[in-house]
Every structure is written in C-alpha cells, then in structure tokens.
C-alpha cells in the first residue's frame, strides 16, 4: 500500500448513510484509507479526481449474488463476478451457495474465501448452505463454516425454499446460538411447480403456467411464525408481492428480528414488460403486477425493506436464447443496479438519494451483521477507502455488452439511464473507472 500515491477527491458531495450526512467536501485518500476530510484540501502535487458534481458514497454491498464457482465457470467465476461487482460500485458481495458442489462445508467455503481474497477485487462474504448438499434433509455444518476462516454468518438454500417446517425451525434455532442469520428463499414448490411467470392475466395470455403470489406468501407467513417462535434472525430474500410486504411490516411492528430485501428488477419491471417470450424477463420469483411494484417501492420508503440486493444470476447465452419454458430463471444485476435504480426511483422523485444509498450500504450490512473493519462504518478519517463515485444528470445507455460479468442476460440492456458509477475505489485504489473517466474496466 505504501507505494500507492495519495489521491485527492475534490469538490464531491459526500453522502454517508452510516452517519446520515450529506455535504460538499474534499477527501484525501492515503495508504488505502481516508486520511483527511474537509474543505479546500490542497493538491500539493497529488493525483486529483475532480469530483465536482459527483456523489461520493461508501462502496455498495450486494447481499445476494450467484457467482457460479465452483461448477459453472463458463457462466461466471469469482474473478469475473467480483470484477462485475466493482464495475457496479459494489466493494463487497455475499455469494449464494447453490453452486456445484454446493458451499455446504467449512473446507470449501474457506477455499473459496481465500481464493477470492487473493484476487484483490471486491470483498467476498460467503453464504453457506442450511442443509447438506442443499437437499433439504439434514443440517449442514453451519457452526464449522462460521468458525472457519470464511467466517460465514448467513445461511441459505437459496434457489429452493426449505420445505420441511420442522427443519427450518431447527435451522433458525441452531444459528441463533452463534448469532447467525437464515436467509429464506420463500417459495412453496407445491404452489409454484412448473410455473414460468406470475399467475394471472399475463400467464393466461401467454399460455404459460403461472407462479401464484401465494407460492411466496405461504412460506413468508410460515417463516415469520417460526422466527417469532424461535427469536432467531430471519432474512427474507427477493420479496415480490404486496401481501408478503404487509406481513413483514406487521411482523416488524411487533418487534420481530426479521429483515427483507428487494431486487432492482422487481422494483422496476412488472409482468407487463414481458414481451415476445423474451427469456431475459424470466426470473424467480416472477415479475409481478404493477400494484406489487408500487407496494415494493413503498416498502423501500417506509423501511419494510432493509436492503436492495440484485440476485445477480448469470446464464450462458445459449441457455437463455431458447423457448421460455426451457430457459433458466435469472438476470444479471450488479452492473445495472445503480444506474437503473437512480433513474427510476431517485430521478423521478420517488425515493431520496440518501435512502437509495442506505439500501445499498448500511441496510444490507445490518442484514448480514457486518461491521467495520469487514464492511461499513461510514466515511471518516481512518476508514478503509472503499468508495464509490457516482455521476448523475447526463444520459447514458446501458450496454450489457460492456459488462465485466460473463452474463449478458440483463433486462435493462439498451435502456436510457441518468446515473452511473464513475469510479470505484477499493482499498484506496481506483479499481474501476468508467469510460471517459480515465478508463474502462477494472484497473
């Protein structure tokens, strides 16, 4: 780090959700850390980023991504996925364990964590399996994964709901012993089986089997009851229906330790956007009704939703370019998240900038129980310089072809946006600079 030259970020609007501050300042980065904050810091021959008109915020945290390693390195690797994170402004991500083999034991999570650390890209926090082999039968060795050098604290069988309520109860109880959190993928297979899109007018018109809102809601209701009974930490992934949100809101009002996340695609798109059987719109849970989208946005504002997570799910083009029913579920999301959310929510006046940044930084950190120095803490003298510089106001076009992710299945490709990540700093180093900002790609 000593060899890294000092970097002065000048004239930025520093927005820090951890401290709730929003003010114009200069920021001096030295030896990987924020060395000085204030007005009129002299350049003194240092490298300078003229950040006039830009927003500086803590690097984002995405708590729900699929990096496909091990098993499907053709679709994504730790390297391409963590580079994509930096390109999207995320200096840390939590990866889901539905790999092949699944991340269900201490040796494997440790190996992955060390491999990721060596890459020197975004930080990786691993979500371990709840059950051995994601089979939904016996508990995985969650305690050992927690004690390993990967320090796993969140567990999920994401991709599948845990069908057995008794097993879910035990999992919640067990991890509460060491402060772990269970991330629920709320989906009742009995109700969703064979479904392709939201059940209703659109599924009828397209002649595709529907996934009813109930498939999610039944499991949300069950998990809230179990969490209430056990007092354990429950996090609900990718909520998509109005009724799920009502239940979470009600549970929170009773003081339940439950958190919830929403994805950018569920916040921006509805089932009505599904056109010409384009599989880029095939996601699980499915895109819901415009009313659900409205409720989801409301839930961001009132705190029912704690975090925005992308559910980044890269797929090989040949798997997506086919009949709707045969294509896999999922979209890539890390590199489009901020531009799309800023444009659709902040620019339109639906959500304050501070709240959007909160949902991308402090909120997800709280869900995962992450604290400085691992992640978060806010922008102050001495903190690690994991920062994002954001540009707004001009118009750009989302280009999935330029993504660092191997995935191209982005429903926002070609969309006009009014915000973008200009720079991502990781450990004080410019890890990504946007085109026209001294680079393209990860430095």
């Amino acid at each position, binding site marked *: 780090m000593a060899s890294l030259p000092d970097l002065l970020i000048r004239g930025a609007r520093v927005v820090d959700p951890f401290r709730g501050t929003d003010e114009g300042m200069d920021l001096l980065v030295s030896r990987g850390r924020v060395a000085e904050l204030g007005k009129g810091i002299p350049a003194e021959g240092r490298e300078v980023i003229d950040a006039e008109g830009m927003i500086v915020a803590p690097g984002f945290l995405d708590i729900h991504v699929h990096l496909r390693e091990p098993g499907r390195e053709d679709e994504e690797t730790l390297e391409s996925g963590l580079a994509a994170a930096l390109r999207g402004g995320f200096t840390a991500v939590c990866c889901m364990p539905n790999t092949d083999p699944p991340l269900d034991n201490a040796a494997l999570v440790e190996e992955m964590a060390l491999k990721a650390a060596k890459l020197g890209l975004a930080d990786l926090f691993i979500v371990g399996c709840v059950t051995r082999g994601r089979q939904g039968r016996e508990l995985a060795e969650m305690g050992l994964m927690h004690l390993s050098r990967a320090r796993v604290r969140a567990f999920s069988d994401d991709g599948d709901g845990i069908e057995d309520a008794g097993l879910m109860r035990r999992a919640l109880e067990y991890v509460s012993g060491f402060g772990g959190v269970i991330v629920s993928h709320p989906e009742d297979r009995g109700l969703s089986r064979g479904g392709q899109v939201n*059940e*209703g*007018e659109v*599924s*009828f018109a*397209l*002649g*595709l*089997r*529907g996934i*009813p809102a109930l498939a999610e809601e039944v499991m949300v209701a069950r998990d809230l009851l179990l969490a209430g009974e056990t007092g354990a930490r429950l996090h609900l992934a990718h909520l998509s229906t109005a009724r799920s949100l009502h239940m979470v809101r009600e549970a929170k009002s009773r003081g339940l330790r439950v958190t919830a996340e929403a994805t950018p695609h569920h916040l921006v798109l509805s089932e009505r956007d599904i056109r*010409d*059987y384009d599989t880029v719109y095939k996601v699980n849970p499915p895109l819901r009704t415009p009313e659900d989208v409205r409720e989801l946005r409301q839930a961001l504002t009132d705190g029912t939703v704690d975090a925005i997570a992308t559910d980044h799910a890269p797929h090989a083009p*040949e798997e997506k*370019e*086919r*009949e*709707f*029913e*045969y294509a896999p579920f999922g979209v890539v999301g890390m590199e489009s998240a901020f531009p799309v959310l800023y444009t659709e929510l902040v620019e339109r006046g639906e959500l304050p900038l501070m709240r959007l940044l909160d949902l991308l930084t402090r909120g997800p950190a709280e869900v995962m129980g992450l604290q400085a120095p691992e992640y978060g803490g806010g922008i102050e003298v001495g903190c690690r310089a994991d920062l994002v510089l954001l540009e707004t106001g001009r118009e750009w076009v989302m280009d999935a072809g330029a993504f660092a992710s191997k995935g191209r299945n982005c429903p926002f490709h070609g969309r006009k946006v009014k915000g973008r990540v200009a720079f991502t700093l990781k450990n004080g180093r410019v890890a990504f600079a946007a085109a026209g900002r001294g680079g393209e790609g990860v430095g």
Partner: protein
Amino acid sequence: MAVKGHLLDVDDLRREDLERILETARSFSEVLRRPIKKVPSLRGKTVVNLFYEPSTRTRLSFEVAAKRLSADVLNFTASASSVEKGESLKDTALTLRAMGVDAVIIRHPVAGAPCLLRRWLDVTVINAGDGMHAHPTQALLDLFTMRERLGDMEGATIAYVGDILHSRVARSGMKACRAAGMRVVAVAPPTLMPPAVPDYVEVSHSFDAVIPRCDVIYMLRIQKERQQEARFPSLEEYARLYQLDKERLRKAKPGVVVMHPGPMNRGVEISSEVADAPHAAITAQVSAGVAVRMAVLFLLLGGGEGGGVLA
C-alpha cells in the same frame, strides 16, 4: 394482418382478414369437391412442416393443404425427447433460413416457440399449435364449420367445456368467436379454469345449467395427467359432471352443433353416441381444416400475387 406475413394467433387478424380467410376457404372447399383437387397457386414455393409434437392429424392437414396448392412440402418431425436436448430451435431456424424455404408451419409443446422462430427466421411463420398458448388455424376452421352450420354467428352462444386452463384450442377459439360476434361461455370445474379469463367470457361450473342456451357446444379433450395434478378426483367423476352424453344432449337446442378438436376420448369428455350423432360436426371440422389451411397458406404466401395478400 397486423404481423405481416405470419399467423401466430387469431389476434393477428383484423375482422376483414378473418372474413377474407373464411371466404377464400369456402372457394377452396369447392375445389376440394372437384375430381381434380389441385390448383397451381403455390407452385415453386417450399413449405416446411416443423413438428416438435406428434400430431399426425394437424400435420397431414397442412401437408394436404399445401400439396393441393402445388407447393413442395418438407416434413421435419422432432421426437419429443430431442426437443430439450437436441439441436436448439435457434439453430434449426438458422438452418431453415439458409435453405431458403418460403414458410414454416410450426407445432411445439411449449408456448412462444413460433414467436421465437419469427425472430430468427425471415420467412412466413404459421403457428400450428404452441403449448397452452394458441392454435389459430384450429380456431379458423372451427369458425368456418360453425358458419357452414349456423349461417350468421352474430349473437349465437358457444360453450367451451373442459380443460380451459391448458387448452390452446379454447384460448384461440374464444378470441375468434368473440371476433365473430358470438357469446362465449367457459364451462369447467374451478381447477381447470384459468386464473384470469377475459371480461367477455362468462364462467360457469355447471354444464347442465349452460346446455339449454348453447348454439354450439365445444368439448375439449381431457388428459389423465390432470388427475395427478389434483385438478379432479377421477375421470369417472369428471365424466359424470362434464361429459356430453345423450342425456345432456337432450336438454340442448334441437339444432345444436357439437364440436371437438380431436382426438376424442370417447367415454370421457364425450360419449360415443354423441360423437357419432348428426349434431356432431367433428368430421366436418376435419374437412374444413384442409380448406382453411389452404386459404391461410394461399393468402400468406400470396399465391401468384407476390406476397402477403392479407397484410
């Protein structure tokens, strides 16, 4: 047509397109009664039957229609098992494109395949049935058959009875009947009714209550696998409640027209006696199939007039 040169569903058709197809089909049905049933309209054109689902009836119907118009017909039948694993639909489309065919008639077990084919292939695409989605030529031949029997269809009542939820025949048929000014009733147990039916469709769960006011009763094929999905307890119970048998037919108007897209499950959704009764227009549907498909091919491929007469 709204979508130039293609027939993916009946909503591609304006009312005048519909009329035009039925009129053209009527003249072709006259041709089909002549001793020499062939016209040279599509000589030199190549039509591909791309069937990913075994359906001898529909494939033969299209093949006969194309041959009566003097087109060359190629049959491509993919086995059910190869659909998911074999050559992708996209690669097949690119192959057909390279071969320079004039039209592709596609039958596919999942919804949307014809729509994707159109994206990858710049020739006429005709949907011969895709999953639960659409079956426009069936809807057209049904309209043709009804017109032959009923004359003016404006204000007439048709009841689709059975597995509405999974039926592409009902999905396209209901739209076509509405376009022809008919009243549409959907009759099924709640478990076989779609989650959201369009406003113009009246929903009923009682076949007996609906029968007396029907001008057309359209029976849908019921599949045994629906029982495993807990859509109904047994075929016997289903038949008791929804089979069109002699008893039920007695409650219908004297001139009622009974239809079925085939193949029938005699003794399940329809009794043998009813299937063979003079009310039944089921064999008329089959002959109408050839004439209507000739009309569609002729109009889409612009027999002699240089393309897209319907557009």
